[in-house]
């Protein structure tokens, strides 16, 4: 059947199961938008294209589906770059569709022309400029296939206006196969046997679980492995929720702001089983000293992650869930007394670390940000989807909210994008309308994409924004306090809007707490209404995140409270 490029695009989007698109129209995509309006696909009009990508990202993380954005050429396209890089760093499946000037104008410095394929080459999994309508269907199909398969990631498809307008024959395409792209899902059996042997013989094992476990849906298999062998589990920031936070085997997060127990256990273990992690510098600290007594096993679907940052004894390339499943099949027994006996000494030692240096803070006259996060956790029963901005708010959310399920902690881990949390919360709320979605924010980062409040109000999305308002760009301030002689260069936020009035101006609800006893009432009210709410918590100005490992130090050398 002959169809226009815009019609073909809609057809393929529907075939790929797309029901929601986050976007912002413009001249180069006006024909695509015209066709979009004729479909059942829901379009969410954001207020800035960066918001569209983060929202699609939050949608993808909460739903496990591919997030889709549609923006125009030139500035519309460049505004997506931070969002794309964010998704790329965290391996989130996105398809970003950008309009482009007509093919005969490409290279002419035409109005709203930019080489977005060139710009995004290093921050996408792959990208395409579609030169002919005949190629469009296959290209978009490939984009979805690439985005969701292997190590997921963002894929950008740049569609010139005349490609959207021209007509071409359309035949539905079967499953996509690509000659040079074949991710390894099934692990090598020989390697797997080595891992199994190490798991069975290790005396002081630790599992280090990451975002790959969540992306692959491997949380249940991981939990089974850990429980049957009684192996304590730590996670990366991206891995939170991959193992139940309430389980006694859970050590807390690892790394720069990891728990004492997690960092010490990693330093003392004889087997570190890294699953779906990439041994980022925020986790390893000084790499030469990282897990220095351990044999390291590294399971990951992306071979480039393995041996990139740390030496590995047994590499295992494969899907995390498939690998854990097979590992369980090879080794797992029901939890039994013999295993418990064997592990007692190690778990006792860890128990001591947990007991002597738990996460802690002193609640006094000013509201402590940690207390706010703890109360958010208590009042949502640990069942909310939590997004964060970046900085202290993010670390306190990671430390003090107990994540028991995968896909419930949505944060910009790799790129560390301030302004991520609010649009991501919008996307997550659209993916999970029945869930409570909370953005734990700071007064600095919330202002980076505050315009998306209008989006939340327009679509009636009851996202809850918890602003930990300390009047500082707190994480940088903390570094300045500790390492720069308290010279607070440019980190004092000398002027900020009244967040309550700001919320009201957007048509949302605004609440404020200044004293500790106001925290629970404000949260109770804010969480109970079916509207977007900004809750402004005026917290202790110079509270710092602890434990902290100074950059470049071994993770066992922590600054404690």
């Amino acid at each position, binding site marked *: 059947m002959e169809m226009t490029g815009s019609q073909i695009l809609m057809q393929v989007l529907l075939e790929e199961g797309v029901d929601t698109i986050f976007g912002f129209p413009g001249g180069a995509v006006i024909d695509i938008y015209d066709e979009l309006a004729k479909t059942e696909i829901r379009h969410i009009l954001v207020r800035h294209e960066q918001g569209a990508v983060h929202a699609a990202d939050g949608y993808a993380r909460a739903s496990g589906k591919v997030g889709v954005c549609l923006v125009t050429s030139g500035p519309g396209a460049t505004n997506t770059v931070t969002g794309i890089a964010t998704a790329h760093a965290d391996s989130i499946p996105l398809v970003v569709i950008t309009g482009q000037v007509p093919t005969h104008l490409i290279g002419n410095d035409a109005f709203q022309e930019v080489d977005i394929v060139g710009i995004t080459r290093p921050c996408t999994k792959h990208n395409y400029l579609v030169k002919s309508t005949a190629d469009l269907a296959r290209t978009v199909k490939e984009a979805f296939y690439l985005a969701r398969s292997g190590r997921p990631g963002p894929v950008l498809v740049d569609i010139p206006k005349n490609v959207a307008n021209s007509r071409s024959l359309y035949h539905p395409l079967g499953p996509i196969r690509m*000659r040079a792209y074949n991710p390894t899902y099934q692990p090598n059996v020989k390697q797997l046997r080595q891992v199994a042997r190490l798991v069975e013989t290790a005396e002081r094992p630790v599992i280090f679980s990451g975002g790959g476990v969540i992306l692959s849906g491997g949380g249940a298999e991981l939990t089974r492995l850990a429980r049957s062998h009684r192996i304590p589990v730590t996670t990366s920031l991206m891995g939170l929720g991959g193992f139940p936070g309430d389980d006694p085997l859970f050590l807390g997060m690892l790394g720069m702001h990891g728990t004492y127990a997690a960092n010490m256990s990693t330093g003392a273990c004889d087997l570190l089983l890294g699953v779906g992690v990439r041994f980022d510098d925020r986790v390893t600290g000084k790499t030469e000293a990282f897990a220095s007594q351990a044999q390291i096993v590294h399971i990951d679907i992306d071979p480039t992650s393995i*041996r990139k940052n740390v030496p590995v004894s047994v590499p295992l390339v494969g899907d995390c869930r498939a690998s854990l499943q097979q590992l369980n099949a090879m080794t797992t027994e029901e939890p039994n007394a013999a295993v418990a006996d064997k592990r007692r000494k190690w778990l006792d030692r860890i128990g001591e670390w947990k007991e002597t240096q738990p996460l802690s803070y002193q609640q006094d006259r000013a509201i402590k940000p940690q207390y706010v996060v703890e109360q958010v956790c208590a009042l949502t029963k640990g069942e909310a989807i939590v997004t964060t901005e970046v900085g202290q708010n993010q670390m306190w959310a990671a430390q003090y909210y107990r994540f028991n399920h995968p896909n419930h902690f949505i944060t910009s881990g790799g790129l560390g994008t301030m302004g991520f949390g609010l649009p991501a919360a919008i996307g997550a709320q659209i993916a999970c309308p029945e869930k409570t979605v909370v953005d734990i924010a700071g007064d600095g980062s919330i202002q980076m994409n505050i315009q998306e409040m209008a989006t939340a109000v327009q679509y009636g999305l009851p996202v809850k924004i918890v602003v930990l308002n300390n009047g500082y760009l707190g994480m940088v301030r903390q570094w300045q306090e500790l390492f720069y002689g308290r010279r607070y260069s440019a980190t004092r936020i000398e002027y900020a809007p009244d967040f309550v009035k700001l919320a009201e101006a957007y048509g949302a609800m605004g609440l404020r707490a200044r004293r500790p006893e106001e925290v629970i009432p404000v949260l109770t009210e804010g969480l109970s209404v079916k509207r977007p709410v900004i809750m402004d918590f005026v917290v202790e100005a110079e509270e710092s995140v602890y434990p902290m490992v100074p950059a470049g130090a071994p993770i066992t050398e922590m600054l404690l409270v």
Partner: protein
Amino acid sequence: MQIEEKHVMTMLVDNEPGVVSRVAGLFSGKGFNIESICSSPTHDPRVSRITIVTQANAPVVEQIEKQLRKLVNVIKLRGLNGPRCVRRELALACIQFKPEQRAEVLKVVELLNGKIADAGLSHLIVEVSGEQEEVQTALNLLEPYGIKKLTRTGPIGLIREPK
């Protein structure tokens, strides 16, 4: 500190616009070094072959190769080192000399198995090819006469078929 060594790699890639840029961009973006790069289509017009020489230690080479294999347009990648490979490089050197040196220069070119691609009263464009070391030796011998311009392809190569 591991020793940095010259490492030659050859890859088959989709013959599409932007592919060389993806490969080269990966090197620059990850802080790897390209010493030479050579790309052209193969007998299959959909496929090009790119040969790259880089200077790096073994773990970095491993990482470069993995990253290259991860590119969607890279079909196949092999190292091109050691005796199981045939490697050749071609150089064109424009030699400028005094007319009375002409006979001597021609003799040297003949000795080097060089070809004369262009000739004038006081200049020659000489073509030399061979293993990289041979090309280097030839250029060293020509240098005293005055190299005005020089271009080298960098090595290309193929892996030998089993005997």
